[in-house]
């Protein structure tokens, strides 16, 4: 790739409007975002409210620009007459290999999926490695192999990269960053702000598998389970859905923070309410069991090969049928709808017929004892 990405604001055709305010360090707009934490804590990377506030209150004002303000999984920028989806993600997973995958396929599929959530087919990826002194070369080799295989499977090419080594003890073995670009098809406009009352909410399959697979092998929590990560590239599934209708309103891959965080972000971005039907949400038995033991809610457990879609009601049946015909959407289910009520909030009807608020998790989900 010879193209350089120019400032999307300068091109004058970025799709997301609104000017970013100048940073005001004496008076943050959000209650207690950072003054509350003079240092970074794990919750700032947990994909919940603290992550969102860090971006909204520290990064976005400092960077300015307009595309960032969209705060989607990827930005959509105009360049040379084409609309490009552009995204980056860093991978710090521990352990490096887990049932059903490893940091390599995760790094490729994660960025491919972020692009797919704009409706784009990923074309090119970059990768950056931060390696810790002393890591076995065989480990690095295995990660590279899995990245190559994942890229080939997703139909994307890794075209540029960078490697840095940090002293022993100053890294966690291997960190990987990938960034990617892909073309957004003409007529496609998928972003969180487009969620509208009447939209049907669809999830592409069983939730919680990736998070439970990781936890099953994480130090201190280990348990025996035949659960594998759902790590997969979703570009093909999204193409199949777009073949039915280009008018898909929102796509989101519910990674960190799980389905609960993803749907909350959409409700909040679009200022709509979301009503979920808990019984319709596919939760595998083993995920339910693991969550029961650890005191976790499957709604907030990470996925790496699932998407949640907001689709106009009159298109929902056809989109669902197309998903069912695709291997990665075979267990897709309608799990709720977008409503013109309790704006910005997600409410679930429980199996018993009661309701509960599905709140945006603050930071990382913690095993509870009581």
């Amino acid at each position: 790739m010879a193209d350089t990405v120019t400032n999307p604001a300068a091109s004058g055709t970025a799709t997301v409007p609104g000017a970013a305010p100048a940073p005001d360090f004496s008076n943050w707009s959000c209650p207690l975002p950072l003054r509350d934490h003079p240092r970074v804590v794990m919750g700032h990377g947990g994909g919940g409210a603290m992550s969102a506030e860090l971006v909204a209150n520290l990064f976005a004002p400092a960077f300015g620009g307009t595309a960032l303000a969209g705060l989607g999984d990827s930005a959509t920028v105009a360049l040379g007459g084409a609309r490009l989806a552009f995204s980056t993600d860093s991978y710090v997973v521990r352990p490096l290999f887990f049932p059903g995958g490893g940091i390599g396929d995760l790094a490729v599929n994660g960025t491919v999926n972020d692009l797919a959530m704009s409706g784009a087919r990923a074309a090119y990826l970059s990768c950056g490695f931060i390696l810790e002194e002393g890591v076995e070369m065989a480990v690095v080799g295995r990660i590279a192999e899995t990245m190559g295989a994942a890229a080939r499977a997703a139909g994307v090419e890794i075209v540029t990269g960078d490697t840095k080594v940090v002293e022993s003890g100053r890294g966690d073995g291997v960190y990987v960053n990938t960034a990617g670009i892909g073309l957004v098809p003409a007529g496609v406009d998928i972003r969180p702000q487009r969620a509208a009352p009447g939209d049907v909410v669809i999830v592409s399959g069983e939730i919680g598998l990736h998070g439970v697979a990781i936890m099953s092998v994480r130090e201190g929590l280990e348990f025996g389970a035949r659960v594998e990560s759902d790590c997969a590239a979703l570009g093909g599934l999204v193409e199949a859905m777009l073949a039915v209708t280009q008018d898909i309103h929102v796509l989101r891959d519910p990674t960190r923070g799980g389905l609960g965080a993803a749907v909350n972000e959409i409700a909040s971005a679009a200022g709509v309410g979301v009503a979920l039907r808990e019984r319709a949400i596919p939760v595998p038995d083993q995920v339910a069991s693991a969550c029961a033991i650890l005191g976790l809610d499957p709604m907030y457990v990470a996925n790496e090969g699932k998407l949640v879609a907001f689709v106009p009601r009159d298109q929902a049946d056809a989109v669902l049928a197309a998903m069912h015909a695709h291997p990665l959407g075979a267990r897709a289910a309608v799990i709720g709808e977008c409503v013109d009520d309790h704006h910005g909030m997600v409410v679930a009807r429980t199996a018993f017929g009661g309701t509960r608020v599905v709140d945006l998790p603050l930071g990382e989900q913690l095993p509870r004892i009581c």
Partner: protein
Amino acid sequence: MKYLAEFQNPDLAKGLLDDIRATVTRPWALMEVCGGQTHTIIRHGIDQLLPDEVELIHGPGCPVCVTPLEVIDKALEIASRPEVIFCSFGDMLRVPGTDRDLFRVRGEGGDVRVVYSPLDALEIARENPHREVVFFGIGFETTAPPNAMTVHQARKQNIRNFSMLVSHVRVPPAIEAIMTSADCRVQGFLAAGHVCSVMGTAEYPELAEKFRVPIVVTGFEPLDILEGVRRTVRQLERGEHTVDNAYPRAVRPEGNPAARAMLEDVFEVTDRAWRGIGVIPQSGWRLSDKYRDQDAEHRFDVTGINTCEPSACRSGEVLQGLLKPNECEAFGTTCTPRTPLGATMVSSEGACAAYYLYRRLGTPAANREASPVG
């Protein structure tokens, strides 16, 4: 999971609910004692299904929430020391002390680790002989036996770099304190099933008789909660006040004698402060003299830390159903889920936190708002 999924079956709730509706003739205020039960109620919306006459008051039974500020401050001090690996159940990390929480300590370089079981902490001590490993031993009578066994095993296996910061609490003195407070509205208790799995039911007849309240030992699944409510309401309507076991699959009258014997050996009863409530006599356990050298408070000399609870917090009144959360001056201003002053705002199931969350909900809130505290 067998014998778990069956008790989560919504199809069987109909009969229970209908029986409650058919029985109830006037308003009753019940308290579920355990935070686990509160969690089930909120998680499945059980309280919304009950007839209007039945009010559930959420009790002080979340051990994380009631751990006193002073003990949290001691934990933060110990966890900050460079030689210490501080191990805790996960949900304790977010509970704020006076000026920070365990997450913050970790951000500042402290070695704070989440474990699933106290035995995992003992394992960490075995693997790190040159570090001091401290486990944060909190909880009710259910968590106390595992923690007692861990202290006992550390002694038996001569693992000297392991100690425990103990802040255990006991249910019966809490029931007594609630019932003796002025204006108490509680008319019946759903007792914590797993506490009774360990302790048995012998402590309760005296309380039921003294305060003339039905006490029904209740499990944790949605159907268990409904059965506990059903049996309590039945007693109230009949003017009875006995101890009833609605959780016989897990509770025997004698409890678990082996666990009780270990508790006797490792712990001794002590007065204990409850966050937001104050000191309740004889309501806690601390390590007995025999195990004093494994008491982290002494090993790290933090006994001098004395923190007073914030006076603005009125969670004690909220817990007893005397005050609605939004009637407290601090509610939503100086006290929010992110900056909680007291127990009821700390946990997402706490009455104040639930109230804070649900008041943002449009139409259903009108119904919902009434439910946590009436």
